[in-house]
């Protein structure tokens, strides 16, 4: 009987081992790198952002006392204005709640908001993404709506330990249900590939045929609460041109978004709340 010689099978074993590493190791490494990449990089981004803040602080320190006093006065005026608006908002909110209770309407979805600093922007033709300086440490969740003073910013797609990634409203992967102001019928908004120097834009489809839009009379596209992600009434953009879609009955058109989306410094993340938690109601 021939003696079994292991060394004859060495090349085969080596090949098998190589394939095993290739098949199993590669996805593991990829996954590890993908997860750790952001986490490893995040501290440097966060540090850069803090340094930016510090630079801003020192730049302001160099202002003269007169300028600072003027700015302080302006701030006081703004604060006073916001106090009045806040009071008016609370009164309206109370009235709304009273009417809702009277009509036995179901409660609206409530959100807590987290203001977060933008620390990185990734803009290309195919996606638009920003990274903010808050993550799991602030209980940010995937899918949460992100807004700013001009309306919708996007949606949280990934949450890391100290940072979160947000898919911008301009991204072709971003799609939400929307409605036109004063028209309850739902339509679909979706981002589009962006040109380098053009204003941010997206597209709207499933628009009923009776709606008209022109450059002299653009119509405003706002969020609807039907989808559950966004509160109703937040601005998405304006539509000044609609054309018949391929169905022959619905229209589609371009949505002009707020140009400030390209220079965001701070955003608010709306984290849905469990019932009974104190919150700002949208």
């Amino acid at each position, binding site marked *: 009987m021939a003696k079994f010689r292991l060394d004859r099978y060495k090349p085969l074993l080596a090949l098998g081992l190589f394939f095993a590493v290739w098949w199993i190791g590669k996805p593991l490494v990829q996954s590890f790198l993908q997860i750790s990449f952001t986490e490893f990089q995040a501290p440097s981004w966060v540090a850069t952002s803090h340094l930016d803040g510090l630079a801003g602080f020192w730049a302001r320190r160099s202002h003269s006392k007169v300028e600072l006093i003027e700015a302080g006065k302006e701030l006081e005026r703004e604060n006073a204005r916001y106090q009045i608006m806040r009071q008016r908002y609370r009164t309206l909110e109370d009235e709304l709640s009273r009417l809702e209770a009277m009509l036995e309407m179901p409660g609206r979805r409530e959100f807590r908001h987290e203001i977060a600093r933008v620390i990185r922007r990734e803009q290309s033709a195919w996606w638009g993404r920003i990274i903010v300086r808050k993550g799991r440490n602030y209980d940010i969740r995937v899918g949460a709506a992100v807004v700013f003073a001009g309306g919708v910013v996007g949606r949280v797609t990934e949450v890391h330990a100290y940072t979160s990634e947000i898919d911008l409203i301009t991204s072709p*992967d971003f*799609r939400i249900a929307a409605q036109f102001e004063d028209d309850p019928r*739902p339509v679909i908004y979706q981002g589009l590939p962006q040109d380098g120097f053009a204003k941010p834009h997206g597209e709207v489809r*499933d628009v009923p045929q009776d709606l008209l839009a022109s450059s002299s009379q653009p119509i405003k596209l706002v969020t609807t609460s039907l*989808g559950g992600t966004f509160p109703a009434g937040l601005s998405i953009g304006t539509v000044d041109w609609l054309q018949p879609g*391929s169905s022959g*009955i619905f229209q589609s058109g371009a949505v002009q978004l707020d140009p400030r989306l390209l220079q965001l410094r701070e955003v608010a993340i709306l984290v849905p709340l469990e019932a009974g938690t104190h919150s700002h109601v949208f």
Partner: protein
Amino acid sequence: MSEFDIHRRENPRILLLFWVSLAAALFLVLGLVWRQLIAKEAFDQIEKRQIERRILKPGPRGNIYDREGRLLVGNRPHYSAVVYLDDLRPEFRKEYSKVIKHARKEIAETHNLSSNPPKPNYANLQWDARMNVLQRYIDQINAITGRSDKVSRTKLKRHFNEQLLLPLPLALDLAPEQYARLAEKLPPPPRSPIRIHTDTARYYPYGSLAAHALGYVQSTDPDAEEIPDDGIKTFTYKKIVGKTGIERSFNDHLTGKSGMEIWRVDPLGFQDTRLQLVPPKQGDNLITSIDIDLQRAAETALGERIGAAVAIDVQTGEVLTIASHPGYDLNRLSPYIPRNTFDEINQRGAWLDRSVQLSYPPGSTFKLITAIAGLLDGVIDANSREHCTGVHRVGNRIFRCHVRNGHGVVDLSAAIEGSCNVFFYARGLQMGIDTLSEQAKRFGLDQPTGIELPFETRRLVVPTKEWKRSTIGPGWVPGDTANTSIGQGFLLVTPLQMATATASIARGETRTRPTLQALSSDTAQKIDHGGEKIGLRPEEKRILWEGMERVVGRRGTGRLVQIPDLRIAGKTGTADFRAHGEEVNLAWFIGFAPIENPKIAVAVMIQGADASQSYHGGSTAGPVAKDLFLEAIKKYPERMGFPIKSD
């Protein structure tokens, strides 16, 4: 000269081979020429048939508006979640190999000792794999929308075999919230194969108003002649056709133009490249003559009662209102009629359009025709008087008036005012059934009006001696004439017919051609209703109209219809009718206004639900007509003579 040349010239076998080879080469060349140049078209066609597929998509239907441009029937989005099976092929393959492995394992475990284990049924396993993949996606949709849809094997097979290029619906009739949630929670294609498909379904902003007149639609397979006969395999979406009402009558006008896509497909029949796209076009819009405010007034006044109300523009014949109760909310029938909804409507008898599809005895409203016949025949004139004692003897039979003690001595105007049966028994018997029938026929009461509504009844009866002999048997007796002269007996008409007859009387003509289309002012000027002048002398017309005005006067049977400052000519009627084996009352009111320049003619009929309900023309149907007149004044004050100009 080579050695071979000698062979070629001298060896007959070589020569034969040479010529045969030459002929074969020539044959091949000719064949190539034939196929490439001459038969190219035919081969192109074969190739086209093999690699091209057509998708036909019907265009949306046109909208229907009322005469003031308000949307009565439109199209609303109809959402569904769909997948193209082509997008799922890699998953089908993956799942198939999993399913096969699992099946083999199971067989091995069950038949581990058997020398000849059974083979798995591969065809079934393939369907199982497809079902599994689809159910996973449906579960994903269910999780987002809260529905509990399931994939159907039969539907999947049918779709695979017959509609491979069309999207397979996974969840139909999504509510707007479900549509919105899917749009937000599902990643857009190509990251997810699930697409949100938006189609159209009919939408009725006014719900049940004018339901019978507007009609509903049904989806059906397209006709064979709509598919181009060029051999390319065609997939078609269902098209929507009008089933009843205006939707049916104006189906061609409202139907959109189909759009078309031509796709190049791979050998398995899945789409590869789109070669052509022709978008569908919406059908033409239709502006109807209906005034939805008047329609609402009529239907509100009818309430829960069984009946019909029609209002017509006296001059043009445009139907302003055509209501039938009980009705149904048309939105419940769109995009399809659920079985329980069908049964519920059926149980209430609401499918029937009582304004045109059922015929009823007109009761005393017919006395106007008897009066006209009498005036034209000469048996009635300004001096005609009849003494009503409450009864009238015809042979051995006693015919009663509705006033037990009689009206006393009445002339034509008073007889119309008080709806005196005895007066009309006497004059009807005097002129005879032939004259009476002839006049009723002159007003078209024996024929459908020809309105653009389907299924207008042909069961219309203006009895004659011949008619009775041929349909019932026994000969005509004077009692039949007496009954006919007060609108009872065998007479059967529709509420629409009575409205057109009223409009004709108002215009002094015998016919009114009703239409549901809004007419342009030019067309309205040239309108020809196809009748003739009634032929009453002015004095005769005055007596008749005076009687009609007195009906709506202080002592008339239709006094509840009175409206200050509006002169209305009317006639009430109460008839007996057999419905569902029970004798029930029918309450009628017909009339027109303003008398000075008639603009609107109305006919209202209300049917008692059972024998216990005692309905009367003046008190039951009259108020409905009054509401119609009031709404007409509100909507068209100038045409109705308002505000009153003081001299």
